[in-house]
């Protein structure tokens, strides 16, 4: 699997002029560390002097990053950075601060650890965001190959639609102009009614143009795996309409050189009317039909069980999938692989301490299953205290998180008291006046450590680089936000779309469905949206039919009495 990667990388290294050993050798050069954690992918800045910077941390941020992420550019850059990793195979070890092992996802460093990205330039690295395993490499190469021919088919569809639309638009004009051009002298003069019809044709075409622009000229929000049935239907309809009109025109008018120009104009007007009705049909089919909610979709993330419910109308499975994805990016909290598993200390004690030896068994498969069953049974018989461990571990973690959070809140509050907005009337020394970026940098140092410790405890540190925190701080300062508003982003895990595009972790989703994806949704349909690390399982339920009945309650009928508890002496 390395070979195709090597080929593409070799291709890319030519303009860069870098010589790199193959990745295997680079990996072998690193002493004894697990493969998946070593390769650090650094995002290169625009300048090419990267090799000289010894302080490349996982928190680097690519400035000047253009908004539209075109697939090719991203991939090429990723490849480029990988090739640079290859050259610095040995250097990637020395980049870390001396004596500190790599940080893996699940280790939470104690308070005594000296993390200083806030203050200096030495590096803290190795978080999983920036490491690629072999699987990732192969996936990326596969993506590159796949996308090449898929783009063609999508563009074909768009081109076809555009051509058809143009044809349909120009046809009425052609109908009107051809008699004028070809047999002008023989035409009967046609006065006011024709002029009225000309005006109506002009305006109807304008309305059609505006309507088509509003409805169709949109950046596609997704690429569907299969043909969009309604669009195809409409294109076929338009095509048939135009062709049949041309047929009639050719036979009745061109061949016979009809003199009645008014008839021709009316013919053209009828075509424009028909096109407007097709546009109306398009609005109804593409936009209106799905608005009324008919189904409730439940989307569950397989990794951690987060679930949401959505109401949708009549959609095909692929459109429903896109709808779910649109909502996924702003509803579901971001997928954090570090938070998934029970800490190893809780689970690891289960299987230790039992070794089962078999005496005189000849069938090896029976042997192994019998052995494992014996181990499991023995372990189950032992008094199982792991739930206890889990409970105390969780309580301890809660306490730790709350303590760090308190420190963070206090630090941020204090930091915000150091700056204030310059009022117009005040006269200040120009040296003392700062723009938001400088103000942010000025107060960042005092809260940096508390922030970093908090992020580390809640395992959010891959999601927030130093640069992103500074930018957010600058943003909050500019808009006069309170410390609480600034912290809102860090205290709770937000939806995926809030984070940097690289955290979106590939927009490539795979739709897995038993039914054809152009089928409409029905009660009980289940489909899965797969990605590398997790998948979204979506199940459909029909919204129940409500029988609403009316009951009239006379406002005067609301009457009350006291609850009695009398005692009478007799």
């Amino acid at each position: 699997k390395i070979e195709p990667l090597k080929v593409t990388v070799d291709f890319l290294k030519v303009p860069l002029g870098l010589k790199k050993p193959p990745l295997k050798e680079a990996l072998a050069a690193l002493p004894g560390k697990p493969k998946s954690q070593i390769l650090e992918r650094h995002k290169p800045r625009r300048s090419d002097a990267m090799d000289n910077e010894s302080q490349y941390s996982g928190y680097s941020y690519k400035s000047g990053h253009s908004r539209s992420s075109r697939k090719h550019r991203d991939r090429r850059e990723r490849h480029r950075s990988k090739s640079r990793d290859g050259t610095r195979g040995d250097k990637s070890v020395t980049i870390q601060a001396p004596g500190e092992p790599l940080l893996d996802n699940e280790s939470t460093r104690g308070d005594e650890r000296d993390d200083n990205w806030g203050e200096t330039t030495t590096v803290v690295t190795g978080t999983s965001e920036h490491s690629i395993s072999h699987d990732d490499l192969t996936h990326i190469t596969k993506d590159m190959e796949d996308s090449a021919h898929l783009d063609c088919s999508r563009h074909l569809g768009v081109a076809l639609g555009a051509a058809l639309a143009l044809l349909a638009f120009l046809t009425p004009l052609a109908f009107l102009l051809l008699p004028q051009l070809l047999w002008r002298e023989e035409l009967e003069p046609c006065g006011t009614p024709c002029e009225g019809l000309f005006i109506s044709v002009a305006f109807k075409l304008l309305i059609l143009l505006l309507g088509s622009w509003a409805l169709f000229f949109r950046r596609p929000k997704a690429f569907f795996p299969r043909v969009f049935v309604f669009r195809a239907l409409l294109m076929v309809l338009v095509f048939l309409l135009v062709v049949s009109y041309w047929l009639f025109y050719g036979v009745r008018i061109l061949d016979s050189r009809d003199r009645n120009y008014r008839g021709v104009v009316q013919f053209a007007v009828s075509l424009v009317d028909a096109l407007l009705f097709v546009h109306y049909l398009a609005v109804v089919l593409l936009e209106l039909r799905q608005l009324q909610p008919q189904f409730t979709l439940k989307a569950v993330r397989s990794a951690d069980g987060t679930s949401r419910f959505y109401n949708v109308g009549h959609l095909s499975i692929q459109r429903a999938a896109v709808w779910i994805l649109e909502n996924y990016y702003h509803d579901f909290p971001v997928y954090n692989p570090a938070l998934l598993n029970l800490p190893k200390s809780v689970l690891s004690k289960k299987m230790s301490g039992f070794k089962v030896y078999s005496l005189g068994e000849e069938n090896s498969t029976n042997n192994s299953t019998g052995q494992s069953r014996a181990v499991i049974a023995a372990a189950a018989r032992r008094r199982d205290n792991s739930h206890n461990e889990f409970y105390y571990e969780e309580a301890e973690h809660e306490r730790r998180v709350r303590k760090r959070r308190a420190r963070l809140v206090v630090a941020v509050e204090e930091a915000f008291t150091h700056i204030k907005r310059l009022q117009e009337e005040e006269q200040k020394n120009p040296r003392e006046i700062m723009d938001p970026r400088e103000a942010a940098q000025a107060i960042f140092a005092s809260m940096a450590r508390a922030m970093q410790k908090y992020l580390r405890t809640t395992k959010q540190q891959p999601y927030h680089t130093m640069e992103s925190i500074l930018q957010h701080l600058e943003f909050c300062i500019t808009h006069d936000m309170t410390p609480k508003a600034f912290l809102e982003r860090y205290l709770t895990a937000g939806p995926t779309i809030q984070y940097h595009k690289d955290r979106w972790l590939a927009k490539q989703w795979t739709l897995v469905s038993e039914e054809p994806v152009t089928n409409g949704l029905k009660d009980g349909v289940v489909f899965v949206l797969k990605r590398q690390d997790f998948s979204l399982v979506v199940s459909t339920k029909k919204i129940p039919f409500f029988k609403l009945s009316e009951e009239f309650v006379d406002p005067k009928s609301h009457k009350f009495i006291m609850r009695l508890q009398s005692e009478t002496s007799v």
Partner: protein
Amino acid sequence: SYLISFSFQQRIEIHKLRQGDNLLLGFSIGGGIDQDPTQNPFSEDKTDKGIYVTRVTAGGPAEVAGLQVGDKIMQVNGWDMTMVTHDQARKRLTKRNEEVVRLLVTRQSLQKAVQQSMMS
């Protein structure tokens, strides 16, 4: 030893005491079908809307006759008292022309099980 709870019926004859123009019985009643049964402290079943004796004046005719607090009055002189309103119950007890009222009451009783006899 343990407690056994049971209810038994008792017939009680009260001779009314004349005080001026009134005939007194010497106890108070609570309950009735128009009252709130959940507030009755004496009933076992809180949906019971019967008439209960809530107080017995010391030395009065009711105490002399053996009526106790918490008794549920089932009948008065043959008239049923389980499904009457509070006022109807009062009226049936305080008829001017009756000097003697014969009540059928139900009483809850808790008694210690007789274990000594078993042990001996």
